[in-house]
């Protein structure tokens, strides 16, 4: 990776072109929109040649690190390898060229993907039906909570305005609940990092719509009291929501539907290997138990005698949550992945992901603080270095320093400072697509960094040394916001 400093606007030269367009259908046409409806000046877009564009974005790409670049042990993000056949399928013109409002008779192939995907995800999770309309995990959470509220409302129960969220939850859980008009009650974790059942009990009552759980939780621990939690929540009339961000280790081992969950979302960009795209597009399908199926959003696909139909409205449906039917291009990739792996290999993925995480944990616990020593699932959390080097008289090396030093060795950093339960949290998730050799190389580097920290923590404080840029001034960015090219000029 190397530093490259241009913005596309800085390559602009008046009159330069990078496009060709077909001849006008009516060359005699005069553009006659009244002047009062037109903009005063043309937009300040760059004027560049095709080669300028290609070189510029190729240079930008070379300042980026992806799964194809190297190991990406980012906890809770499931950065598994993205198979290339999936890209080829998603790029097929017979899918890319389809308008979302075409008549059902002309899109039977598209609708079959929706139908088969619903069936496949239901088989994998033990739920009854899925909607594929949400565009991301957080969007799925919001949709699932809408389903939860619709269910209570359908029974005339409007008093359930609170949702319980564990203190170890992803930040999106409480945020999604707030967007859905619910207030949040936090349940504490116990010393073993699990939901404290005794702390939960007094929170339950007629005002509880449900609980949002991540299992395994963000510490990578299986919530083994889930049976008791499920019956407590159900007994008080609430529903159980499963945050599928951590579904990967359960592939082939445990189905959320069997644990008593009523509603869940999956992240196709995590568990089902679709590329993260620098932060999207993703897909966050929501699955529900049988009795909640009628509350799923519309539009939805149904099958009748081998023909597929789109249902636009349904009386009890939570409503429409996105423009059409979600990110079809992402759904295609994920279904290709399911077909490639098949039932056997998909069922093995979870166990191999769990093995990799435990292998790293056991290999590094001599150098990094392991607050919870039990067997983890797909990920685990260290609480910083055992020896941060402060004995040298210099300031000790922090988790941030370890993360930045990893970049110098060609690895992406783990998730840092999350979950909030540990001050120096360093959350590692290797995924099943990494070889033992890759894990060993990572372990060696983590040991090397721990040695550096103990001997001279300043090496870490200054890291990264080999990245395209060194640590930026984030305070200045927030204090004097420059949020577009034009701001820079003024």
């Amino acid at each position, binding site marked *: 990776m190397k530093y490259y400093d241009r913005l596309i606007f800085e390559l602009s030269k008046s009159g330069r072109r990078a496009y060709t367009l077909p001849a006008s259908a009516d060359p005699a046409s005069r553009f006659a929109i009244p002047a009062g409806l037109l903009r005063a000046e043309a937009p300040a877009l760059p004027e560049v040649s095709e080669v300028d564009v290609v070189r510029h974005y190729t240079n930008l790409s070379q300042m980026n690190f992806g799964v194809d670049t190297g190991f990406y042990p980012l906890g809770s993000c499931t950065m598994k390898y993205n198979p290339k056949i999936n890209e080829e399928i998603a790029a097929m013109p017979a899918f890319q060229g389809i308008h979302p409002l075409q008549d059902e008779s002309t899109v039977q192939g598209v609708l079959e993907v929706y139908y088969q995907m619903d069936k496949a995800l239901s088989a994998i999770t033990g739920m009854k039906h899925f909607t594929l309309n949400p565009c991301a995990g957080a969007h799925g*959470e919001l949709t699932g909570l809408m389903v939860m509220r619709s269910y209570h409302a359908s029974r005339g129960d409007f008093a359930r305005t609170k949702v319980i969220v564990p203190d170890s939850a992803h930040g999106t859980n409480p945020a999604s609940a707030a967007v859905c008009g619910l207030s949040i009650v936090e349940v504490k974790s116990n010393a073993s990092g699990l939901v404290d059942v005794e702390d939960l009990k007094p929170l339950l009552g007629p005002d509880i719509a449900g609980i949002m759980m991540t299992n395994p939780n963000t510490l990578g621990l299986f919530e083994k009291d889930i049976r008791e939690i499920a019956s407590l929540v159900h007994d008080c009339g609430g529903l159980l929501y499963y945050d599928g961000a951590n579904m990967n280790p359960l592939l082939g081992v445990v189905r959320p539907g069997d644990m008593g969950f009523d509603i869940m979302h999956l992240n196709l960009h995590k568990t089902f290997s679709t590329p993260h795209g620098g932060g999207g597009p993703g897909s966050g399908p929501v699955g529900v138990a049988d009795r909640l199926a009628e509350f799923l959003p519309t539009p939805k696909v149904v099958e009748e005698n081998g023909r597929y139909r789109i249902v636009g409205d349904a009386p009890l449906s939570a409503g429409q949550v996105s423009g059409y039917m979600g990110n079809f291009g992402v759904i295609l990739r994920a279904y290709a992945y399911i077909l490639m792996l098949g039932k056997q290999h998909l069922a093995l993925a979870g166990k191999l992901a769990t093995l990799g995480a435990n292998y790293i944990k056991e290999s590094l616990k001599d150098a990094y603080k392991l607050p919870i020593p039990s067997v983890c699932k797909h990920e685990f959390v260290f609480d910083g270095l055992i020896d941060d080097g402060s004995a040298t008289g210099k300031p000790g090396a922090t988790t941030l320093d370890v993360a930045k030093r990893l970049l110098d060795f060609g690895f992406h950093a783990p998730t840092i400072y999350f979950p909030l339960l540990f001050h120096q949290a360093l959350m590692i998730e290797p995924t099943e697509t990494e070889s033992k050799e890759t894990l060993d190389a990572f372990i060696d580097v983590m040991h090397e960094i721990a040695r550096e920290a103990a001997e001279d923590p300043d090496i870490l404080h200054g890291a990264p040394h080999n990245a395209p840029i060194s640590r930026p001034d984030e305070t200045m960015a927030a204090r004097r916001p420059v949020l577009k090219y034009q701001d820079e000029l003024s």
Partner: protein
Amino acid sequence: MLERVGVKSLDDLYADVPAGFIYKGEYDLPDALSEQEVRDWFEGLAARNTRLKVFAGAGAYDHYTPSVVPYIISRSEFLTAYTPYQCEISQGTLRYIFEFQSMICALTGMDVSNASMYDGPTAAAEAMRMAVASARKKNTVLLSSTLLPNVVKTVETYAKYFGTNIVMIGSENGQTSLEALRRAMECGDVAGAIVPGINRFGIVEDLTGFAETLHEGKALFVEYCDPSALAVLKTPAEWGADVAVGDGQPLGIPLCFGGPYVGFMACTKDHMRKLPGRIVGETVDGQGRRAFVLTLQAREQHIRREKATSNICSNESLMALFVTVYLSLMGPEGMKEVNEKSYAGAHLLHDELLKTGKFEEVFDKPFLKEFVLKPLVDVKALQAKLYERGFFGALETEEGYVSFCVTEKRTRAEIEALVAAVKEV
């Protein structure tokens, strides 16, 4: 590896899971396939879709995609990266998002853009929530009845759960009625209004007086726009809007049955700290070199949890790159040409359809690439004839009109063939 972990088998890794929860069955899924078999399977499905010459819009527009765009966005350094948490090795992503924000601001005239949203309708829903958050204690948001139906439905869904009242504003001669807006403001509870720049009839709305009326009542003016058309049309900033939202799909993004697309959201400086979603800002690194970071994160869910401006914790990043590369290639001249050619084709089709005697004019208002006519023939028969000839058009509106859309991709020969098909109905 098992030995290092201290277990005898993979199953032992799940010893903490209550035995009753261990799935003993086999997934009801096919056996593993080879690449060739997967490709064949999807090709079989593809054959059950019909590719049509698209003469419809309604929120998804068949504009041309230059070959450079898919080429760039399939570079794996962009495609397989996560959200730019480690900014030192994510300068590629952060720079193109900064460029995206700059281009959205150039098109809308707004001061600040976020890093993108899921799609246009959800961006409109976020604008609804932003209006309520900005206006203390007021809880009604007005929607123009000329907005696309999927925008209205999505905003209504979000509003139902968020607890916001939605009131529809009527239209007059195919355009949002300023008089109806004024009347709706009288309740005193209006936090904002969402009005389209180009509406579901294809009409370019004259929004004169909207900003004054809304601002007088301390309500947020949100314009829902087509960013492709904004290259020539009066900008939300020029109309006095506070927030501009819309879908980036018309900027060359393939139809792909409705997604992935990309929503955008931009606002004036005054509302910057209420904007949901990611925002990239410029700063310097330790050596004083220009660098880019995620900024103003105090608005976001990982810091603020339930008090965040939104639950969105990502953007539609790769599609934001799509739009950025597209706009770089097209430039101001290319965008002007896209609009002029779409206009030329749409007006040609409009006039030729009227000449067939099978339609009547509905509105006498300026339109760009999309228009509605009142059919004098059976709509189902008309649509069936178009399908038979390989066209997709004549989408029926709730009033019983039919809408057509023509982009720069449609040739004179295609337009003539469509008109010939209509004559047979």
